[in-house]
């Protein structure tokens, strides 16, 4: 790798990685973990899509399909995108961007990586104990009755929850206490603000997931009956518990991606962000509002009419700050000096796909429409547009952007663009047809479907192969870049934020002398 003393080579050996307290190394550990899980989750997705290629049993029976579908969802949510941006990119970039030597609690930081590994380990052990088939939402009473290995998966998710809590806690304290001299709150890059908003959700919502999962375990082991109608419990209450966490969780997934996009747009248009403060407050208000809207997942669950109406109205509000962000980004491009490098392509991909995901989110929030769309492929398409088209685009864009900082080397620009092309195209081919399928009523979590749905499903399956090609190209590009790429220089993009002022890769304690901040952000 790059020459000179830096965080990558100042200590050697496996142990120096596994017991490292350096936030940058921990970030790299997360990188390896998250992309490995992404690969596993992706393989499950491909298997699912092959099964759905044609009517009848294509490669697996419906029981196996339910298992694969559950693992795909659970892996992607708990092991890929929730740790994805905050724990991987955030860990690496956050202290650099605010001019700190490390995060506030380095040991806790390492611990949260171990929580992820151990939790994921426990959850994946279940594969050998019979698997799970409840869907990633674990709805009771099915998850109580299902004779599959629900307990290990739930326990694993519980442990991974602590990983997320600890990361969030660490970031809040780091941002409050460890900013470099002169780094006022409103001089912080927007990525930092987005991580801050995310961390608030992580700290305040995840504990409710923890207790929900504990209750589910108690339900299965002790039969406490709180969510079991046979003992007087209310299964719909479980859904309240679950979504009180899991709706805010979707903003854990998207807020950091939005932060990445802000950075990319500022860097590749060489502009100050239009409406910096508006974006800051939009992030914070999305975080706050995210706690008010969970009931929109329960419009047909048996939740009361009034609760439905209230939740529908509250949900609409979340769209406003999101719209503000989108318009601000577009305005930032106005009169910029714009270069179409791979990271910006991903940012543009984000804008387009997230926009579609967002407007279909509003259709889902419209209560009567959701009655029709709920649990159909329309929802599946919506959340892939926001999660893959939004968060995964964000993580890829951010990765390509900070790649030279992480490894001191450059990837091949041409290959990077090709990979974007395949991912973007394949993505739309895979998931756009699913909106139409959803509108015509195809239910989700179906291992098989009726004849009229077949042609669009085939299109979708072919699309999933295109995405795969895209990700494989990306993987090759990045691996080649790490080992053989040309030396990148400290600031290859001409970006203005602090992380670009130290060397690439950065030294062990980030900056040789503590930076003094005298300018506003992006100046």
């Amino acid at each position, binding site marked *: 790798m790059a020459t000179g003393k830096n965080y990558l080579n100042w200590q050697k050996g496996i142990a120096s990685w596994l017991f490292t307290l350096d936030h940058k190394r921990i970030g790299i550990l997360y990188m390896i973990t998250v992309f490995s899980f992404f690969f596993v989750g992706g393989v499950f997705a491909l298997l699912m899509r092959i099964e759905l290629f044609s009517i009848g049993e294509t490669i697996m029976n419906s029981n196996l399909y339910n298992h694969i579908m559950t693992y795909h969802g659970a892996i992607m949510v708990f092991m890929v995108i929730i740790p994805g941006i905050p724990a991987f990119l955030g860990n690496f970039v956050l202290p650099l961007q605010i001019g700190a030597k490390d995060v506030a609690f380095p040991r806790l930081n390492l611990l949260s990586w171990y929580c992820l590994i151990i939790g994921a380990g426990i959850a994946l052990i279940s594969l050998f104990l019979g698997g799970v088939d409840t869907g990633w939402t674990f709805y009771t009473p*099915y998850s109580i009755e299902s004779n599959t290995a629900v307990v290990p998966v739930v326990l694993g998710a519980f442990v991974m929850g602590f990983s997320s809590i600890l990361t969030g806690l660490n970031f809040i304290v780091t941002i409050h206490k460890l900013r470099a001299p002169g780094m006022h709150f409103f001089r912080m890059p927007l990525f930092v603000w987005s991580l801050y908003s995310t961390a608030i959700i992580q700290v305040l919502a995840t504990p409710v997931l923890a207790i929900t999962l504990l209750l589910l375990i108690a339900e299965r082991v002790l039969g406490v009956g709180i969510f079991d109608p046979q003992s007087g419990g209310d299964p719909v209450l479980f859904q309240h518990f679950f979504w009180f966490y899991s709706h805010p969780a979707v903003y854990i997934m998207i807020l950091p991606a939005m932060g990445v996009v802000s950075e990319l747009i500022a860097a590749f248009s060489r*502009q100050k962000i239009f*409406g910096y403060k508006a974006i800051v407050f939009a992030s914070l208000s999305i975080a706050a509002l995210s706690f008010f809207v969970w009931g929109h997942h329960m419009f047909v669950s*048996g939740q009361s009419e009034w609760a439905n109406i209230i939740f529908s109205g509250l949900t609409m509000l979340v769209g406003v700050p999101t719209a503000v962000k989108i318009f601000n980004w577009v305005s930032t491009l106005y*009169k910029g000096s714009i270069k179409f490098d791979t990271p910006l392509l991903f940012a*543009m991909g984000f804008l387009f796909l997230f926009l579609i995901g967002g407007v279909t989110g509003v259709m889902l929030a419209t209560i009567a*429409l959701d*009655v029709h769309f709920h649990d159909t492929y329309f929802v599946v398409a919506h959340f892939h547009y926001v999660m893959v088209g939004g968060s995964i685009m964000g993580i890829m864009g951010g990765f390509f952007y900070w790649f030279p900082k992480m490894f001191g080397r450059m990837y091949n620009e041409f290959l990077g663009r090709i990979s974007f092309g395949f991912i973007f195209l394949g993505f739309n081919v895979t998931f756009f047809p699913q909106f139409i399928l959803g509108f015509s009523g195809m239910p989700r979590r179906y291992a098989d479907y*009726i004849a009229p749905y077949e042609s669009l499903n085939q299109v979708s399956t072919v699309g999933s192969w295109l995405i795969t090609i895209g990700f494989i190209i990306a993987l090759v590009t990045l691996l080649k870049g790490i080992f053989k790429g040309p030396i990148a220089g400290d600031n290859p993009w001409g970006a203005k934020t602090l992380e670009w002022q130290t060397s690439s890769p950065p030294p062990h304690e980030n900056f040789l002398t503590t930076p003094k901040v005298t300018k506003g952000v992006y100046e």
Partner: protein
Amino acid sequence: MLKLFLFSGLSFGQSETTAVTDYAHQLDQLNQFLIGISVVFCLLITFGFIYFAIRYRRKSDLEEGHAKTLHNSILEFSWSFIPFVIFMVAFVWGWLLYSDLKTAPANSLEIHVYGQKWSWGFVYKNGRKTTNELYVPVGKPVKLIMTSRDVIHSFSIPSFRIKQDVVPGMYTSLWFKANQKGQFNVFCTELCGTGHSTMLAKINVMSLEVWEEWLRKDPYKGLTLSQIGEKTFQGRCTACHTITKEKKIGPGLADLFKAQRLLVSGKNVIADENYIRESILNPSAQIVSGYPDQMTPFVGILSEEELSGLIEYIKTLK
């Protein structure tokens, strides 16, 4: 135009996309309104950033951005306020339609729906029961009162644009008025286990006279006990049992009668009439070894006639 765009490439025979009720028509209007607005916004924004990106692409490596303003109160206000207004329109419109969906007309015909793994049972006011086939008259409001015997299911009729979860331990309801004769699909849309994707039913909308005629018919008239059993079995049991020795969710039932059964409790029993009867009514009491305790109890669902029929039918399986 938009409709064309959305539905092109679809080759639906019995199309799920045609709206069959007034409600479905109204819902489609709301849908088209939102799609229209969304397309406008998406195009606007997409063309906006693509245009900027090309118009202001970097000319030389050292070039910096040229924008002077970082604020524009009018712009910023309008791009928060206009979406807000649109959101509120969507919200209120959705709410109004939803209120219709929640208030069944007082003269609705009530039909009871029971979901269970993995079939739908319908009970009509005169006591007539059907499985996986719902029969309703055209042009009359019908209210479904639904509950589940085991886990949560969801009763979804895409052509009517409605659905409602069917929850154990409570009753939920749904109403519709079909304006068109024909047969329409019902899906279960809440994950309920292995048979989730096969938990389908059909709604048959027929003219009032035919329907009343149908309602009075005794479905089992002229059938032998074992034929009644076979009919019941087809509707209720095939999700989990085969009539050969092949294992599905539960054991294959061929050669069961008078066979030795090893139970989880370690006991050995002979599968006589009583055993089969208890296995159907209260399966958890005697679990066959090697199988999960997954069978939904049929107590209270099957009539005495059907139960005896099932036993007779199982006896004939070889």
